[in-house]
């Protein structure tokens, strides 16, 4: 079984802008996390260089997670690759440590194809209480849609 998630998503914006949404602290704070969660602007710190960090705090109804990622590969407007460590993730014992890779591809017509790969999700990181936190955020999100 593949312990990575892979997501492909097309955005109606040039990749320079999509890339900036991930690397500009003010922008990341505006969209990261499901509805019901928020990222305080002053908690965000981004240094998009190899060895640089991406740090922020995400708060939700019953959640306060801190994310600290170290960039391992950076190609401006094309690629962000990082080792992530997240503490306070619902259902996870200790810290969640995963690799995150984001590829930004030019789709033409001012569109961008984002390819996300994250993992491995190993059982050893999983705690017993897996249904709290984000699930309640999603429930709130479902109610809004």
């Amino acid at each position: 079984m593949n312990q990575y998630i892979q997501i492909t998503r097309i955005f109606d914006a040039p990749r320079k802008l999509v890339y900036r949404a991930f690397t500009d602290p003010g922008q990341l704070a505006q969209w990261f996390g499901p509805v019901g969660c928020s990222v305080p602007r002053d908690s965000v710190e981004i240094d998009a260089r190899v060895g640089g960090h991406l740090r922020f705090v995400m708060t939700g109804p019953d959640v306060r997670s801190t994310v600290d990622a170290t960039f391992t590969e950076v190609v401006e407007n094309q690629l962000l690759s990082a080792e992530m460590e997240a503490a306070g993730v619902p259902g996870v014992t200790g810290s969640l440590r995963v690799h995150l890779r984001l590829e930004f591809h030019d789709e033409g017509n001012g569109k961008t194809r984002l390819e996300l790969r994250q993992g491995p999700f190993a059982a050893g990181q999983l705690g017993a209480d897996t249904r709290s936190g984000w699930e309640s955020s999603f429930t709130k999100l479902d109610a809004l849609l």
Partner: protein
Amino acid sequence: MTDDRLSVIFGALADPTRRAILARLADGEATVTELTAPFPVSMPAISRHLKVLERAGLISRSRSGQHLSSTLRPAPLQEATEWMERYRRFWDASFDRLDAHLRRAAPERDGQ
């Protein structure tokens, strides 16, 4: 689902031979002899893999005549997948917001 239970499932899935056995069983039940044929390993080795899969609840075994047949039980696979699906939903929900954010930023793009 408890941590221990998921660990047993992921542990069972961590081996390529066991994943191949599950893939074969997705086509229908099979005996140990039939399961051994495609692999360069002994029948006792396959039997040991089957025990691990059975303990994880991924297969059940039943005797039909002289033979012990193995059948795929997909439910634990779905449980293990659900955990990862939550991360997928997390990103999907975030990207819905990113989509809206980029639309709001559109005038800025036109101005460039």
